[in-house]
């Protein structure tokens, strides 16, 4: 009896340990691969992060183009999906008749499950031709990627904002309305400020989802390793560059080291975002 107990506990412990080891080795392995860029290839961290010149054949591996590309595409997605997501969440929690709210929630939940490659496919067949027709360019580029990502982060932003709004006590709304505030004034002056921590979390997790997204972006952004001058031109992000060039990177080469270093940057940004979320959660 007791041997069984002890054995079970050891198995569970081993599994828990495996999780910690897996995460630690992920950081260690990727970090080690990336470090080759700075030790073997003698590229400086400053050059890697700030140089806009990416030409591995000529020993230039500045990742600033991709870093900036990632940040701007994410920003654009947030600009589109953020306000729309919060507006829909407000509609669901404050305005919608219950029946409509449940139908809309169900449709948005469907968006969560759709694989990112299908978003890319939809981008290819709907968004890109749409941008092409309105801008007289190829259609591939920042704007198309931002639109696709904006829709992709919508469910995340809606779900988390909704949670934040629904957590606000009804007495808060009544307090404001009983002072003669309109519904909009109540939402704008009382509800949104009260829920701002939760809304911040919704935006941060939306960013986290957008910045790591690979295929949906890769299929519509046009993949050019230059930073474009406007929204309608091809660009690239950290994940799209990794997925495209990894296949052709010989093991131990400068390019491979650079790609692993870019993966580390991406990992760092993601960890930072979640750290921020934790800090917000702890404070409120």
């Amino acid at each position, binding site marked *: *009896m*007791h041997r*069984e*107990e002890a054995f*079970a*506990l050891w198995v*569970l412990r081993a599994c*828990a340990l495996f*999780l910690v080891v*897996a*995460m630690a080795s*992920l950081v260690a*392995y*990727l970090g080690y*691969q990336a470090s080759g860029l700075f030790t073997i290839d003698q590229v400086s961290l400053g050059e890697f992060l700030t140089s806009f010149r990416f030409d591995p054949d000529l020993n230039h591996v500045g990742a600033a183009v991709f870093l900036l590309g990632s940040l701007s595409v994410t920003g654009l997605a947030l600009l589109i999906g953020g306000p*729309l997501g919060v*507006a*829909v969440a407000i*509609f*669901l929690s404050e*305005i*919608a008749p219950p029946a409509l709210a449940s139908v809309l929630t169900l*449709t*948005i*939940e469907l*968006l969560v*499950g*759709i*694989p*990112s*490659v*299908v978003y*890319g*496919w*939809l981008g290819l*067949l*709907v968004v890109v031709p749409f941008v092409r027709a309105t801008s007289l360019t190829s259609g591939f580029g920042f704007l198309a990627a931002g639109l696709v990502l904006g*829709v992709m982060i*919508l469910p995340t932003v809606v779900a988390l904002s909704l949670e934040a709004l629904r957590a606000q006590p009804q007495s808060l709304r009544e307090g404001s309305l009983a002072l003669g505030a*309109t*519904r*909009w*004034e109540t939402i704008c002056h009382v509800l949104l400020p009260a829920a701002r921590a939760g809304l911040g979390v919704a935006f941060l997790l939306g960013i*986290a989802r957008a*910045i*790591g997204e*690979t*295929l949906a972006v890769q*299929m519509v952004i046009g993949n050019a390793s230059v930073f474009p001058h406007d929204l309608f031109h091809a660009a690239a992000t950290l*994940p799209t560059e*990794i*997925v495209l060039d*990894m*296949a052709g990177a010989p093991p131990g080469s400068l390019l491979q080291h650079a790609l692993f270093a870019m*993966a580390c940057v*991406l990992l760092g940004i*993601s*960890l930072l*975002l*979640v750290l921020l979320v934790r800090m917000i959660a702890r404070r409120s």
Partner: protein
Amino acid sequence: MEYFLRRRRQWGNLVALACFWMSAILVMVLIVALLGWLVWSGASALSWSFLTSVPNETGAGGGIGPEIFNSFYLLFLTLFFTVPLALAVALYLEEYAQPGIVASAIQLAAEALATVPSIVMGLFGLLVFVFVLRWRFSALGGALTLTLLNLPTMMRMTQQALHAVPGSLREASLALGATKWRTIIHVVIPGAIAPLTTGIVLIAGRIFGETAALIYTAGVSVSNANPYDFGLFHPAETLSVHLWYTHAEGVAVDAQRIGSGSAVVLVAMVVIFNVLARLIGNFFRRRTSGR
């Protein structure tokens, strides 16, 4: 003056409410239009032979049979690893671990693992399974990478499911002389089975659609030996990877048809998994509520 202010506030309110209605309608129309378009364009591409025949890399007329097979094969492999592992870690944290440095280290590792973007996880899989273990692109490597990717979510769902089992049930079992482990096996896990099953099906939907983590682990081609290959160490291109590859790098002449068909199959599977999760949840709820 007061009259104008009142008017302005009334109008502001109406305009704001109208904006909220419009955003909601916009999103609704957008989703319905996109999905409708997807289904409409995909339906014409679907046929029995498309769903069952092997792909054609260069010419026209290729199908997606092996890809569908591989998607399910990888799904089951991944669940085979993910579910027990997640259950074990969750049990350890919920039932055994004392709050302290060990428990918080595990929790922290899980949270950190949950943030890893899938392309980064794919690179880790490439390093470990392809470079270090020299498996080349393989079904097993892909499944293990997906396991790491989905472990944190599955673990969190399992933890919530275990947490929801009332403590009085545990106490009742322990008071009857059962050991802790027996209590877990006979009382806690059966008590958590409903949310657990729902969680598994939801995770299954995610695994089915995952792409970025598989490109450099399970590969972008199907097995040479046999398209319907159960070999753990053979490449296993899934449906979602196929959809991407056909458009990103492929040279098949009827890429459009393959894309539409694959996309509609993927979305259909996601819908099926979602509905299934809901049905299972309802089924268990009805059974446990005794009606």
